[in-house]
């Protein structure tokens, strides 16, 4: 076995309020590694390149197959999932792999960030289909294959935060909701039963931080790991908002 190693530079932070700092690790190379397995190797031997014993790097992960969205990090400057980002490809662009936590979310520790802003936004837009009741609502209306295809694409969203990390409109200081919320708004508003809450969703999405704050940089479309049709979502919610605002102007009660 060769003892080939590669360098990994990790941005660390001991707790939410403390300052961040960088540490470099030498990691033994094995074929077909991804960033999670790299972090596992660092956890097994938490010694920096200059021989100092340190606390193991903390990170968040779940499914390890790019479905749960928990392990989003900024790797070599781009937001992506640690589980599906391959070391061989990273080493091709740079001999040192650089790993940082997402910059738009509060850091809990090291690479682990608090993504609750996104989940709160899902609550705000009522990201569900209202089926609870005292009697059986029966089968829902039929949908065309085309509608199903679009909604299937929206359903792939895993609330990973890549779209928001790359978005110039989304900052820690403002209340912008971002592409993730808009895609889920279109997802549930285009559902035959989910439509029942469409106006309530639009009331939220037309407020501060809503759809009208989008600046059309379209980075979200480029970085989305699940390739959601985010520009279609933004335009579609924009159209719904246009129509709803005119309707509300003439028939609104408040």
């Amino acid at each position, binding site marked *: 076995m060769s003892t080939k190693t590669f360098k990994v530079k990790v941005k660390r932070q001991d707790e939410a309020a403390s300052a961040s700092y960088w540490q470099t690790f030498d990691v033994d190379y094995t074929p077909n590694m991804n960033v999670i397995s790299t972090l596992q190797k660092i956890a097994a031997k938490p010694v920096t390149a200059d021989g100092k014993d340190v606390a193991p790097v903390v990170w968040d992960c779940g499914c390890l197959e790019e479905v749960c969205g928990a392990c989003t990090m900024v790797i070599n*400057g*781009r937001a992506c999932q640690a589980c599906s980002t391959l070391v061989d490809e990273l080493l091709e662009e740079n001999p040192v792999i650089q790993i940082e936590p997402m910059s738009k979310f*509060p850091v*809990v520790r090291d690479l682990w960030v*608090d993504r*609750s*802003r996104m989940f*709160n936004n899902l*609550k*705000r837009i009522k990201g569900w289909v209202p089926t609870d009741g005292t009697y059986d609502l029966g089968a829902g209306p039929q949908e065309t294959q085309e509608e199903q295809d679009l909604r299937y694409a929206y359903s792939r969203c895993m609330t990973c935060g890549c779209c928001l990390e*790359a978005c*110039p*409109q989304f*900052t820690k200081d*403002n*209340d912008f909701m971002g592409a993730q919320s808009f895609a889920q708004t279109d997802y549930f508003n285009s559902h035959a039963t989910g439509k029942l809450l469409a106006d309530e969703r639009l009331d939220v999405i*037309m*407020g*501060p*931080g*809503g759809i*009208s*704050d*989008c*600046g*059309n*940089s*379209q*980075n979200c*479309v*480029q*970085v989305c790991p699940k390739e959601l*049709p985010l*520009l*279609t979502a*933004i*335009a*579609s*919610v*924009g*159209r*719904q*908002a*246009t*129509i709803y*605002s005119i309707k509300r102007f003439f028939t609104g009660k408040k």
Partner: protein
Amino acid sequence: MSDSTVALAEPNSAFGKYHFLLRRLHSLSGIIPIGLFVCVHLFTNAQMILHTLFGVNPATGESYFQHEVNFIHAMPALELIEYALWASIAFHAVLGFVYIFNSKWNTTQYKYEANYRYTMQRVTGIIAIIFIFFHIATLRWRWDIGGFWYTPFWGHGGELADNSTIGMGDMKHVPMSLPYTAYALQFHWVVLAFYVVGVLAAIFHWANGLWTAAITWGLTITAASQKRWGVVCWALGIGLTFAMTAALIGAMTYNFKDMTVDQKTVFTHVLPQDQVTRFLGEGVTKADFPLEAIMEKAEH
């Protein structure tokens, strides 16, 4: 980890309540009053090249461009249009700056074409508003910027440098449209460069703004329709660039010897002698064009 670190923000101010309306008015004000005006403005100015191509209109003794200017000046409620435009530009610019400061550009990290356009949209907006300000300040208010950007004429006529005996109203009856634009641009290459940069910025801002507005308002939803509308916006942008080029060629090639006698009178009496010599040739002075001639006309 706390389960709810971000409060559910609700609209809590008047600004919040009208958030959507303000945003959409911002989009609309850029397209209709400002954008449409700039289109008409550039199309009109492009006709300055008609003078380069065909010279003076034998029927009127003036350049063909003058007809367009006279038409605009004869429009009813012209001042109302002017103030409405100023209001639109101020609204669009002030809100634009607020929106710029509420975001963070990241083209160094995310080098995508659309992301560069996002940044360019903001940069060109800033360039355009600075340009528009100086454009109006020099041509409309006759500010003297650094001694090299100065247009001492009105769209009609001019004002004497030593108007102690003659009221400024007297010379406003002499149309000066093409000469005064040509004078501003031929005066110094910096002015020409600023015009090229400023107008190109405005054209990009409008063409790209039209493209993104179609997404904002929900007109183009599918990727294919966005691409098609993109072609239309490109065509508009290129068309306006041609109009700008024609206008600049017209102004830069304008020969001041083509001015009418009345225009030469205003020109020689308003400008210092070195500029008169520069544009009308050696030996020409204001003594060759007595003021009395146009003052008599003004009285009738």
